[in-house]
């Protein structure tokens, strides 16, 4: 099947479920493990990831197809993408800090974390490898971010519950048990496979 003929909406849902960037590709693990201790901050980080990935995906699509490809500089994509993501995050942080303190407190403080988040970068690389169109990459960015946010919120929910009720053996406390949970969650997400296919 020709990839460019897939409807963006399908790509959006696939990015959340069958191709969840966190649970199928295990990208963005560091902040996923570090910030998933409580639901509130994990939601904040999740929303920030959705925001950044939704905007950087099409932005980098433009940089790749309108700047790098015409000059035959595809091999510089890594540098270009990182610079674009970093600059975008910087500008957004400045604007948010100026416009709304409340928004800055809930979203802004996570933005610097995201600059170096591999989920964002992975999302951009996938849309290049899979040769998405512009519209598809917007849908994919939004979907990948949403999928990541969903996964971190789920893990945070499980971890807060577990902290109250279950006893974890000392050796597995913290990141250890979080990784085990992530593994089980990832297996559960395999259940989605077959619904849609985008790569």
């Amino acid at each position, binding site marked *: 099947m020709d990839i460019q003929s897939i409807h963006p909406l399908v790509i959006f849902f696939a990015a959340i479920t069958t191709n969840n960037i966190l649970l199928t590709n295990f990208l963005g693990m560091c902040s996923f493990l570090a910030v998933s201790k409580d639901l509130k*901050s994990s939601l904040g980080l999740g929303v920030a990831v959705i925001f950044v990935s939704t905007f950087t995906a099409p932005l980098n699509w433009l*940089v790749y197809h309108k*700047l*790098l490809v015409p*000059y*035959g*500089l595809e091999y*510089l994509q890594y*540098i*270009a993408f990182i*610079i*674009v993501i970093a*600059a975008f995050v*910087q*500008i957004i942080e*400045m*604007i948010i*800090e*100026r416009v709304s*303190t*409340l928004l800055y*407190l809930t979203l802004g*403080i996570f933005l610097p974390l995201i600059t170096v988040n591999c989920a964002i970068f992975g999302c951009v690389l996938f849309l290049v490898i899979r040769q998405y169109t512009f519209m598809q990459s917007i849908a994919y960015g939004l979907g990948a971010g949403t999928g990541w946010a969903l996964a971190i919120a789920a893990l945070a929910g499980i971890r807060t519950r577990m902290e109250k009720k279950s006893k974890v053996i000392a050796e597995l406390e913290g990141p250890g048990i979080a990784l085990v949970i992530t593994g089980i969650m990832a297996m559960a997400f395999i259940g989605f496979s077959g619904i849609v296919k985008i790569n």
Partner: protein
Amino acid sequence: MSPIITAIVVISALTGGLTILLLIAEFFFANYGEVTVDVNAGEKTLKVKGGANLLSTLASQKLFLPSGCGGRGSCGTCKCRVVDGGGPLLPTETPYLSDEERKTSVRLACQIKVKNDIKIQVPEELLSIKEFETVIEKITDFTHDIKGIRFKLPEGETIKFKAGQFANLFSKPYDEVREETSRAYSISSAPKDNKAIELIIRYVPNGMVTTYVFKHLKEGDKVKLIGPFGEFFLRDTDREIVCIAGGSGLAPIRSIILDMIDRGISNRKATFFFGAVTKKDLYYVEEFKEIEKNHPWFRFVPALSRDDSDHPYSKGLITDVVASNYSDLKNMEAYLCGSPGMIDACEKVLTSKGMPKTQIFYDKFS
């Protein structure tokens, strides 16, 4: 065009474009114009450029809040009250603030940005913190690894400090050390002697500033000092005083005793236990003996922990010597200064003799 040049041009154009975008954004969004910082309800009004954090904004105006980590939000010492204009409490501040402090709007100066006119309250003595470009007047070798240095303040300038406080000494770049570094040292001179200050410095192997002091400083050299800082000073009560120090910890105690003499405080008994290993680690003995002779309220007890030679001083660990001197310490106050190990051990002995923790004050040298 060769591919290399194309690559360079394209990437430069991309980064250049983004940089311009960032600069434009900074101009529009991070430019907060000139703002006013009101210190202690009008006592001092500072006109500053907005956008930076409060700690560095104040430092640029020569108002120095204490800061251990240099503004990274990891030590929690740069606290000050923000009466108005500080914005909501940030998640980066909460771990360092108690409920009481949150209620009285205490904030971490390194975390809040100065975006609009702001009203703050700092302890009165912080306003007396200044930067001094001093000249070294005298260097005295006290022991094999302890030196006393007297710094003369610039002509016409004076320093106002409480006996027991410390100052930060800045080393200039030397050998492989390329940066200016600073370390805190207790002031050993009396507050009355306000045209100069004396510090007692013990050599720390490979210490950045002490190496500079021991290997490079000469009399007549110019050195930067900022101070005074610190919460270690004589409390205003009528209680009898127990001072315990080891090594260079003698400095603030000497300042406190000299200050008591200058202020004519003779209704409080004071005993100074000075712990050392052997006789050659003692210094200022003559001076304290002299004070003991002239002031009946003062007693000086040097103690040597590992010196079997014939000497007139107490023998044994400082903690044992202190313990053997007192039976009940409930109504006394203690001032401790030295290594963390010594202070913890002394605190244990003092509390076991009935001294409440609130009456023990210390300055840990670490």
